[in-house]
């Protein structure tokens, strides 16, 4: 029963539906407290649990933010394997390697198993109620402004609950941080299309021109894009889609391109404007803005600045002109500079010139519940948090879903700043670098044990809310779901409002049932709707179609190319690999042993150097090289890699942990440590690709541990992996 002192508006807010764009139906239904359910123990197995027979539950992958819907195989109460949920519009039954490894997150031997309180250098196990009491005690007398909460991207009811909790503390300091996020592109998209993440229909494009967007590997929603890519390759009427990738270091997507154009680092925008210029010259009508922006970017200038040959430029322009619609993507390579926003804007302008907006760039569905929409992470958030911490502004710091001590650029000295907060609470799965700095570590359930709702940032297939449900009983009795923890914490503040919810499950169930009409369960009773929801794992929402707004690119101007740096002559490209991303999953051994697709290296970091450059410097494979920036130096093995600009070196992110667990600690190096503090001028995001370095041989040499054989991926003239050109095949006759 709803307490009489608890009015309707508060109620809506508690449940996360406040401000909903859709009218609540069935409001006033008093079944909230009926939401109590106990999970039947396995000893008294439910009749659907048959030893030897697998059952499958739908849930949501939590390994990245793409929100793929998964289908977990459970047998004898153990989750065995994760498959894609075939009914999902996002991943359509498919899974990436990172997602597959989710079970290793769940069963990881290095998970934190009980609340740990700092005692000197050690963590002492304490009980949960003591931990909660301690938090209440530490928050006592601290103003809301002195509390900061750092989280990764959050969405759904967890975001609501988190917001409500911070509000109950009187704090507005929620910092949503993702070390690797397309934040600059979001801003540029917002400007160009009126949407941060429009839908990119790769499958509808005849040509995809990607400026460093690794959409097959790690960009935004790779599993979804991979399926679109497959359709794009099959093409329409046998006309196969053409992929051209522009970047300074080959990504997985670049490795699949029909033409991979290596550009001088940072000149992506120049090339985009050069293409606009050439298109204009070849008769494509340009808007005034486009003409103005591309003015002066003639072929001679563009080829000399970017290093792309005139021949390739001409062919590309001809192709873009001839085959429409096309799709131009601005990715992490383009945005990672101080002029990243301008780069992205120039690239987006190319889409407008080519008339792709509305054809291959479409409006995303509008989520009817904006408060559920994901809080999108950026590195700007970490910057401001760091400044606040360094200034001693925050006394209590919560961290959840982020590992800033590992991922903050070395120039930020985040670890030192964090030390200035008097009380640091880490909600953690592992004792990672950040948790080790905390005073109190609270162990969380894995995503396969926890309840939740999630809304992906990239709505591939209409608006939807993903359901996360436990696939099995908890492995460790003393871990808690993040929702449960937040509920317990918020009860410290607003006991009355939340007293009806024994746990996060009952909260979630109540919340969803409360609004089942809007969630597509209008006609059914609560249990039917609830069962159907859990069964499908997806709530598809009938949302209004969004709109794209045309925008002007007035005033777009790229900065002059930066002068060569004599002391630090090389560009450092910290690469994001599909498996390790920002390193939060480095303790999953499948991911460590899964070879990097391009170099086939496992279990270690490497420095990619172009063979020509390496020959000049006398570097051979396996030489330990020192990579020094203004901020710091790291040493790693050299790998001679043809897919990189000779003036750049690349080191993958995600390895080099000093803590976290047996599979992560001590393997490789962490290039975050040597990133300089250079920021995008418009958005203030960290310019990941702006760090300049110098490299030198240390004098040691190691054997590079990799899968490829001694001849480095050559076929020696044998017919192993074959290739044809489009004029040699008849794709139309294929099935």
């Amino acid at each position, binding site marked *: 029963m709803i307490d009489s002192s608890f009015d309707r508006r508060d109620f809506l807010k508690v449940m996360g539906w406040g401000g909903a764009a859709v009218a609540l139906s069935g409001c006033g239904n008093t079944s909230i407290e009926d939401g109590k359910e106990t999970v039947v123990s396995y000893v008294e197995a439910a009749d659907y649990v048959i030893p030897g027979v697998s059952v499958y539950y739908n849930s949501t992958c939590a390994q990245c933010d793409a929100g793929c819907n998964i289908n977990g195989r459970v047998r004898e109460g153990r989750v065995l394997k994760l498959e894609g949920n075939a009914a999902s519009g996002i991943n359509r039954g498919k899974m990436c390697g990172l997602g597959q490894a989710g079970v290793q997150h769940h069963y990881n031997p290095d998970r934190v198993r009980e609340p740990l309180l700092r005692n000197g250098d050690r963590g002492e196990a304490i009980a949960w109620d003591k931990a909660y009491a301690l938090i209440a005690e530490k928050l006592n007398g601290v103003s809301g402004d002195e509390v900061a909460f750092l989280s990764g991207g959050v969405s759904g009811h967890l975001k609501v609950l988190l917001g409500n909790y911070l509000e109950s503390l009187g704090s507005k300091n929620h910092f949503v941080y993702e070390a690797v996020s397309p934040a600059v592109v979001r801003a540029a998209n917002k400007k160009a299309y009126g949407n941060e993440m429009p839908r990119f229909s790769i499958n509808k494009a005849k040509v995809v021109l990607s400026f460093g967007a690794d959409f097959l590997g790690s960009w935004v929603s790779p599993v979804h894009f991979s399926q679109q890519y497959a359709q794009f390759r099959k093409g329409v009427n046998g006309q196969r889609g053409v992929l051209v990738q522009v970047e300074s270091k080959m990504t997985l997507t670049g490795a699949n391109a029909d033409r991979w154009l290596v550009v001088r680092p940072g000149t992506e925008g120049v090339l985009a404007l050069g293409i606009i210029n050439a298109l204009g010259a070849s008769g494509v009508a340009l808007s005034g803005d486009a003409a103005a922006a591309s003015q002066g970017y003639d072929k001679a200038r563009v080829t000399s600045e970017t290093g792309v040959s005139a021949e390739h430029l001409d062919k590309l322009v001809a192709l873009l002109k001839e085959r429409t619609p096309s799709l131009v993507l601005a990715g992490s390579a383009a945005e990672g500079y101080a002029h990243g926003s301008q780069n992205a804007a120039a690239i987006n302008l190319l889409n407008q010139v080519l008339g792709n907006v509305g054809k291959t760039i479409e409006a995303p569905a509008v989520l009817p519940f904006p408060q559920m929409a994901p809080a999108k992470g950026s590195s700007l958030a970490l910057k401001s948090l760091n400044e606040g911490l360094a200034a001693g502004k925050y006394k209590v710091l919560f961290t959840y879903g982020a590992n800033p001590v590992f991922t903050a650029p070395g120039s930020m000295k985040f670890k030192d700043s964090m030390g200035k907060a008097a009380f640091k609470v880490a909600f953690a799965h592992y004792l990672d670098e950040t948790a080790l700095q905390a005073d109190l570590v609270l162990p969380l359930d894995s995503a396969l044990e926890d309840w939740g709702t999630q809304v992906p940032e990239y709505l591939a297939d209409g608006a939807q809310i993903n359901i996360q449900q436990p696939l099995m009983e908890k492995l460790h009795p003393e871990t808690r779901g993040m929702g449960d923890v937040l509920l317990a914490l918020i009860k410290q503040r607003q006991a009355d409002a939340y007293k009806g919810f024994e746990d996060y499950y009952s909260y979630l169930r109540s919340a969803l049932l409360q609004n089942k009409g809007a969630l597509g369960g209008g006609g059914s009773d609560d249990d039917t709707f609830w069962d159907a929801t859990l069964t499908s794992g997806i709530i598809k929402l009938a949302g209004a179609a969004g709109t794209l707004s045309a925008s002007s690119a007035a005033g777009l101007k790229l900065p002059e190319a930066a002068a060569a740096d004599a002391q630090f002559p090389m560009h450092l490209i910290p690469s994001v690999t599909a498996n390790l991303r920002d390193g939060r999953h480095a303790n999953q051994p499948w991911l460590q042993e899964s070879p990097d697709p391009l170099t086939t290296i496992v279990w270690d970091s490497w420095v990619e150097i172009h063979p020509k450059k390496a020959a000049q410097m006398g570097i051979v494979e396996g030489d330990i090289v020192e990579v020094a920036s203004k901020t710091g130096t790291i040493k790693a093995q050299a790998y001679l890699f043809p897919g990189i600009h000779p003036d750049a070196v690349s080191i993958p992110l995600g390895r080099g942990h000093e803590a976290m667990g047996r599979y992560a600690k001590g393997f490789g190096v962490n290039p975050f440590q040597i990133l300089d503090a250079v920021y995008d001028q418009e958005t203030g995001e960290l310019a990941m690709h702006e760090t300049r370095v110098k490299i030198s041989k240390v004098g040691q040499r190691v*054997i590079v541990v990799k899968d*490829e*054989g*001694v*001849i480095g*991926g*050559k*076929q*020696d003239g*044998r017919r*192993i992996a074959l290739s044809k050109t489009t004029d040699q095949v008849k794709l139309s006759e294929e099935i």
Partner: protein
Amino acid sequence: MKDIREDIAWAKINKDVLVSLENPRKMYWVIVFSALALFSVGVGCEVYQYNVGMGVANLNNPNVWGLYIATFIFWIGMSHSGTLLSAILHLMHADWRKPIYRFAEAMTTFSLMTAGLFVMVHIGRLWQFYYAFPYPSERWVWPNFQSPLLWDAMAIFTYLSSSVLFLYVGMIPDLAICRDNLHEGWRKKLYTFLALGWEGTDRQWRNFRITYLTIACFLIPLAVSVHSIVASDFAMSQQPGWHVTSFPPYFVAGALYSGCAAIITLFIILRYVFKFEDYMTKSILKKTVRLTFAIAMVWTYLNAVEFAAVWYGHDVDAKQVLIQKATGPFAPFWWGMIFCGSVLPLILAFKRFQTNIPVLFAVSLLLNLGMWLERWMIVAPTFSHGYYPWVWDNDQWPSLVQWGMVMGSFGWFTLLFMIFCKVFPSVSMYEVKEMVYHRSLHLKKDETAEQGAH
């Protein structure tokens, strides 16, 4: 130079040989204990490998075979010359073989036993090795009769049992001599038992000759087939560098070659250790050396045949393996094999070296090193440079465990051999007597041989 002095009294022969059962030089014990130490190293390696897994040998995918198989072939090959000397030369009535065939025959037996061990240490699940035998299983499961490895197992087992039988049968008259001349003790009982009541009657001798000849005839095709079958392990596979038609004769030639070289080595050792200078004469040594030289040339020819067949054939992959052997990371070993196997034996063509014991000792060891390298060069390069370039891998240097077991095998072989020579007469007394007798018939004026009548 005479093969043997015609004037040795038969009693002296008995005495000289029998003394070897009692009182060898100190060097004997040095050799025995060194061998024991080496063998212990091998046992230690095997215990470690058995417990931890084959991985400690530093084998990998695709380099799944290593020194174990190479050394296995080496020991199988070593076994052939015993048969050559005892059976083939017996049939050819080359009586100079008589003082040395016994130990050569023992060498055959013991090298087969050594080779057998390598099959054991090589397989991943030693405890299930009997699956390879065609025993009547309750599950009606037979081994795969298509597999050359199974033929191998059968051929070796047959060869080993026949060799033991041949060795034993040929020893019966000598065992009787031992029985009659040795003082009481466990040995006497052993010889009494093993001599099977031999009294040297006419009938016994007649039956003995027939039996011995029959086994000899049986053994010769067996010996040829054994190494042909070992060759089939490779030739019947599909891998470049292995799929060579000439492999069976090539293997047989190599086998005889290494066996002869080993006979020279052991000849020199036994001659010294057991003071057999009167029986293991330089003349016999010279004949053995000449035989070895001839076989070396046959081997060299067959090598050239193989290379030419590969070089002028159309099998690009096989040709690449050959080129890789000669130029790749295996080149030092491959050229070492060519040098030791084809160049070094040319020394043996010079008369002055044919009886030079220090030179021959060194050369015979190097010849066998060459033959061991040959086996390694057959096995390893094909794995590191097969059909599939992605898995090419030349860096697979055998671990100390592998080397330990190779060393251990030499210890094991030497140990068995030296114990045999101490327990059984390593020179055939009755055949040496025959030999002396036949030579002495040409010297009718000389009465010495008559006096030696026993």
